[in-house]
């Protein structure tokens, strides 16, 4: 009988090393299915052997070697059955193996395959979590509230397309890297946001998903250390995650101005601030102008810099939103800018801006308007907007917060 804590430890090591193992095998055998299956078999061997022999000094290397042997065994077996077919599968990647040290490049290649623009966005997320993150299909299905068979099919289809359409196992060239990297970051941010404010389900915050997104973003940062947007996304995630303990109280969402700031994670905030400072220095040293993630991180750095909500430097935040609007001229950015502007120019100015945004049906638009109307003493209209916001979200903590706010409005005078 294996100690449960050891099983958990082996599974953690396996998850940490999964991307490395799959990437290395995918490169060697040119086949994601073979790579994924062999990685799974290596875990079974590890669960059998490590409790007896102890966890090896280099578990990643051990798993890769074991998985490689298993893959070769399988190819030999199938070779005897169908020599021609397997010979074809072996030669998809004709590029020679790079010397040691190129191993991490395999992981980077794998990320770009998983987040390829020819795959549907939901398939990109699923593949990234499965192959790079080492999550099981069941875990990913639970995370996105779809049946396991649906998720399995999504992943199988995406892998079939990668194979049939010859999506290359390669880091994109200089001319494409910016677009392709943006697709990768979008996948990571989507995973994070689903954890940060779950779109439905029993848990309003999914700490497993935010942690996974941070872990994967750290990996990407390791692989692309000079990329400002990667650093920006990591900082944004850290500064957001730092507040998570204070974000929900008694099953209700707590807004930024009402959060208990002593509950914020100083370690994450310090790390996030250091990343933001590093990016500011890079920009002022003549680097490329900050992109959306760096600007969002900077906004969060200003928020987390204030010991008390009243100390928030709103002018700075509005300036950062002005910059963000140039990079990302969307209604959602304009809405967030309006929230900040309300602190300087008053709720009436902010409300006038939200009037012009075509965001009806978006929960945050209704919630923002509800709050601004409440502050302006327009209770009936505020109540109406709270109802619209509640109808537009399925997050239990957000519904709890909005309902309480709505019910705190002064009762309407009898007609």
């Amino acid at each position, binding site marked *: 009988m294996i100690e449960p804590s050891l099983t958990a430890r082996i599974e953690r090591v396996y998850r940490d090393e999964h991307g490395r193992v799959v990437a290395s095998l995918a490169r060697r055998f040119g086949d994601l299915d073979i790579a994924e299956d062999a990685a799974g078999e290596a875990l079974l061997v590890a669960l059998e052997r490590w409790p007896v022999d102890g966890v090896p000094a280099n578990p990643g290397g051990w798993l890769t070697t074991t998985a490689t042997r298993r893959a070769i065994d399988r190819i030999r077996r199938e070779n005897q059955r169908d020599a021609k077919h397997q010979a074809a599968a072996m030669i998809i990647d004709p590029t020679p193996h790079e010397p040691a040290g190129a191993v991490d490049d395999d992981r980077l290649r794998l990320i770009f395959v998983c987040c390829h623009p020819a795959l549907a966005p939901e398939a990109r997320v699923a593949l990234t979590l499965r192959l790079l993150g080492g999550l099981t299909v069941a875990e990913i299905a639970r995370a996105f509230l779809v049946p396991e068979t649906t998720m399995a099919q999504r992943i199988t289809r995406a892998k079939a397309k990668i194979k049939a*359409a010859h*999506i290359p196992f390669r880091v994109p060239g200089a001319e494409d890297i910016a677009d392709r990297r943006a697709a990768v970051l979008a996948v990571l941010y989507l995973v994070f946001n689903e954890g940060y404010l779950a779109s439905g389900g029993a848990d309003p915050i999914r700490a497993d998903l935010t942690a996974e997104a941070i872990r994967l973003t750290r990996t990407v940062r390791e692989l692309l250390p000079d990329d400002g947007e990667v650093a920006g996304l990591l900082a944004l995630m850290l500064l957001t995650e730092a507040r998570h303990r204070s974000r929900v109280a008694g099953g209700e969402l707590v807004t930024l101005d009402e959060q208990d700031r002593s509950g914020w994670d100083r370690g994450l905030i310090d790390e996030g601030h250091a990343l933001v400072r590093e990016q500011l220095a890079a920009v002022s040293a003549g680097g490329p102008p900050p992109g959306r993630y760096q600007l969002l991180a900077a906004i969060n750095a200003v928020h987390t810099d204030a010991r008390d909500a009243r100390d928030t430097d709103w002018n700075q935040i509005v300036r950062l939103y002005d910059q963000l609007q140039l990079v990302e001229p969307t209604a959602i950015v304009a809405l967030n800018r309006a929230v900040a502007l309300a602190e300087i120019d008053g709720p009436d100015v902010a409300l006038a801006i939200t009037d012009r945004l075509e965001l009806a049906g978006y929960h945050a638009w209704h919630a923002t308007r509800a709050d601004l109307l409440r502050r302006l003493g327009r209770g009936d209209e505020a109540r109406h907007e709270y109802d619209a916001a509640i109808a537009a979200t399925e997050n239990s903590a957000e519904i709890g917060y909005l309902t309480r706010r709505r019910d705190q409005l002064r009762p309407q005078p009898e007609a």
Partner: protein
Amino acid sequence: MAQYLLSVPATSADYEDVDYTDPAIQQMFADTGKFNDQLQADGHWVFAGGLTNVTDATVVDGTGDDVIVTDGPFAESKEFLGGFWVIEAPDLDTALKLAAAGSKACQGKVEVRPLQGDPTAE
């Protein structure tokens, strides 16, 4: 090397009352010709063609004892295949780049689909 079908959808409006003296139409033909030349020069070209209107289609069913010939396409739909390229490319990224250039040249959307098998298996 893999082969891909690049297909361009059309609607019947693309075949009715087309003014071939329209400079925009002439430009489109010129650009498409240039794109074809480039495909050949770069070794991507396998085959290409533009199709006549879908009203010219005939469906033949030889699966039964009697061959059945029917006027019209497989399925009536607003959009149908108007033209295509079959190209050779090392991977999807290259095929997508060529499709983007082809789309710009012929002023239409392009669907990229891999052909089955690996005809140039080493």
